[in-house]
């Protein structure tokens, strides 16, 4: 955080003695130096991860938006789930595993994921009877989720870089709080206009302070989720001679012996769901992961969600005869397991319905703007000291506004052309950043915001046109309306920041 402030004006009454203990100025200055160095080193990565994370909160809703014609199911019978499972298994009877996703409030659809004989992966949607109605095609939703979790890099590297970015963000929060001795004195000060540095500092510091609980939660859980592979790897090296599967086995519940001989009959999903409903009447099955279907060693891991809990749900292991073997312990086991089960919901805001999702989106965008304003403060400070960096001012402005534009254009492209959204996003990011060569920061900011607004409106229009007369999911309409509202806000922000004519 930046410690910039102004002298109080005469009209402003004094607010009394600060209750925050006096922090030595040298300590604050040293912390600010570390805060600046870290923020600048990771600025672009933190910005991309925060922006993509804000959007990823609505991953399920975007999947529904991309295929709004698919059946909206609030509940399905165990028999329907079983029928869908068997229909997909019939496409590849030698499938190693199948993943059945049951309707949930955020994703009211029945789908089955599996691989084909050539190893290609497919997800099929089914209707209320379990009849397959088509394949899942959600390239843009997958693109944005993958960008946030692994930056479209190989899992090990991408996860590590995102995890390291989370650590850098967490570190910035620590140094930012320690370098902000006026945390209470300036708690509600928000001044816009006048000094650029003061304006950016107020924006940076107010969002940082009041959003601190959220910032700490998402950065800690994000760093943990990203670094899981490396943490487990080192742990396995120290304790299991490098065998990571033994470390993971501690978190997978009762094991079922692998037995590839053909089973007398294929695992019965309907029987499993019926048994589980009798044993856990308050819980709702959200997904089943069936391993080795058709073999003697076939079994399923079923996730059960109980309303009102923070956790992602309890996982129950069931054998090929639908006999319940036991729980992993995500809700009934050790403290560690219960904490682990809360990591994903806490990180993505998937624990309190749409009010929390909206809050996560806005707070996430707030954190994104904290990153953006942090660099802007550094640039403004250089300018104030007579050492301006105009090239970096242009590059940073262009990069910041390249992301909304890249998302908008890639979403539009995904609707009309089969090009991979990541390629479109990458090309737009490069092109938008290249505007730094020619324009001033103000012109870049205005042009890219207006272009984003235009593409958002176009995306909504094309989406409605492409799916004309067959939108079954109301969420699609809400997202289209939200795109237009976002476009209006962006265009409005350009209008409000236009140069005023002098009298």
């Amino acid at each position, binding site marked *: 955080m930046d*410690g*910039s*402030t*102004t002298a109080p004006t005469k009209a402003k*009454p004094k607010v*009394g003695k600060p209750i925050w203990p006096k922090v030595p100025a040298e300590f*604050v200055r*040293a*912390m*600010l130096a*570390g*805060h*600046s160095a*870290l923020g600048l080193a990771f600025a672009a990565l933190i910005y991309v991860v925060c922006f993509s994370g804000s959007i990823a909160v609505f991953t399920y809703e975007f999947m529904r938006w991309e295929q709004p014609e698919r059946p909206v199911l609030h509940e399905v019978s165990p028999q329907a789930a079983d029928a869908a499972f068997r229909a997909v298994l019939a496409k590849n009877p030698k499938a190693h595993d199948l993943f059945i996703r049951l309707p949930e409030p955020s994703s009211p659809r029945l789908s089955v994921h599996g691989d084909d004989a050539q190893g290609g992966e497919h997800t099929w949607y089914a209707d209320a009877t379990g009849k397959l109605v088509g394949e899942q095609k959600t390239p843009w939703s997958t693109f944005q989720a993958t960008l946030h979790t692994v930056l479209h890099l190989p899992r090990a590297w991408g996860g590590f870089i995102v995890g390291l970015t989370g*650590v*850098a963000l*967490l*570190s910035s929060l620590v*140094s930012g709080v*320690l*370098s902000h*001795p006026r945390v209470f004195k300036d708690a*509600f*000060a928000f*001044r*816009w*206009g*006048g*000094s650029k540095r*003061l*304006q950016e500092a107020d924006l940076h510091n*107010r969002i940082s302070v009041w959003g601190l*609980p959220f910032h700490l939660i998402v*950065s*800690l859980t994000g*760093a943990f989720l990203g*670094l*899981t592979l490396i*943490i*487990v790897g080192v*742990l396995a090296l*120290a*304790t299991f001679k490098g065998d990571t599967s033994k470390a993971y086995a*501690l978190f997978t519940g009762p094991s079922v012996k692998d037995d590839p001989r053909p089973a007398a009959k294929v695992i019965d999903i309907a029987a499993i769901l019926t048994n589980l409903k009798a044993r856990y009447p308050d819980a709702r099955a959200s997904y089943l992961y069936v391993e080795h279907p058709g073999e003697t060693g076939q079994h399923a891991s079923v996730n059960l969600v109980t309303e009102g809990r*923070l956790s992602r749900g309890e996982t129950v292991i069931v054998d090929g005869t639908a006999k319940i073997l036991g729980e992993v*312990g995500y809700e009934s086991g*050790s*403290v*560690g397991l219960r904490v682990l089960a809360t990591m994903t919901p*806490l990180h993505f805001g998937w*624990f*309190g*319905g749409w*009010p*929390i999702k909206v*809050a996560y989106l*806005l*707070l996430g965008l*707030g954190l994104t703007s904290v990153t953006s304003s942090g660099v802007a403060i550094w640039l403004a*400070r250089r300018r104030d000291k007579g050492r301006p960096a105009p090239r970096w001012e242009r590059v940073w402005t262009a990069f910041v506004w390249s992301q909304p534009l890249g998302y908008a254009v890639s979403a539009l492209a995904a609707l009309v052309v089969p090009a991979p959204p990541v390629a479109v996003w990458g090309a737009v990011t490069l092109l938008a950043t290249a505007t730094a060569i020619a324009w001033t920061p103000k012109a870049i900011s205005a042009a890219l915001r207006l272009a984003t607004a235009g593409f958002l409106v176009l995306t909504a229009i094309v989406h409605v046109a492409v799916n004309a007369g067959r939108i079954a999911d109301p969420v699609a309409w809400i997202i289209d309306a939200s795109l237009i509202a976002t476009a209006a806000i962006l265009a409005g922000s350009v209008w409000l920041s236009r140069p005023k004519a002098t009298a």
Partner: protein
Amino acid sequence: MSPLWALALSPLPLAGAVLLKRAWDRPSPERPWLIAGGWGLLVLAVAASVPLMGAARGPFAMLTLASMVALALVAAGVERRNAKKKAARELAPEPSDRKRVVWRGWLRGFLAGPLAGIAAMGCGLAVAICAPGQIQSRMVIGGLMVPFLWAGGMAWTLSDDKILRATAVLVGVSVVTLGAAFLKGAL
């Protein structure tokens, strides 16, 4: 219904933030009461969320919404300034001006990145392997400590001017914790 409880409770943190802002706005005899009332309402909102939304879920939901409403209140109180008039500045803290020495820069980067990471990993491993308690709990708590300690180490090494002291501490912590973890070596 339970997601809507979060919305139903949001007037409580809003009222709390309003009281805190009134205390911040001007000194008055009621100021201590306004501060106590403001924080009291925030605590009440969190407490009320427990029976309505769940013991773990409620407080996290309320913290999220409280951040939102407080920021909305800050935004509502925006003070527009004339861009032409440059405000008089107080002596705002400036980052300390360090001499630019190449080897110190590289060493600082090494300390904040790999070495702080190794030291944090060592602490996490030591907890996972040597601490009492159930295996899974030790692993998860140890795992959660890694990013937190790494972040702390990063913040410290990047701001501490006594760079050799930071090196010695991080090397020492790495040797002790990793040594203990690999010596014990079994869960």
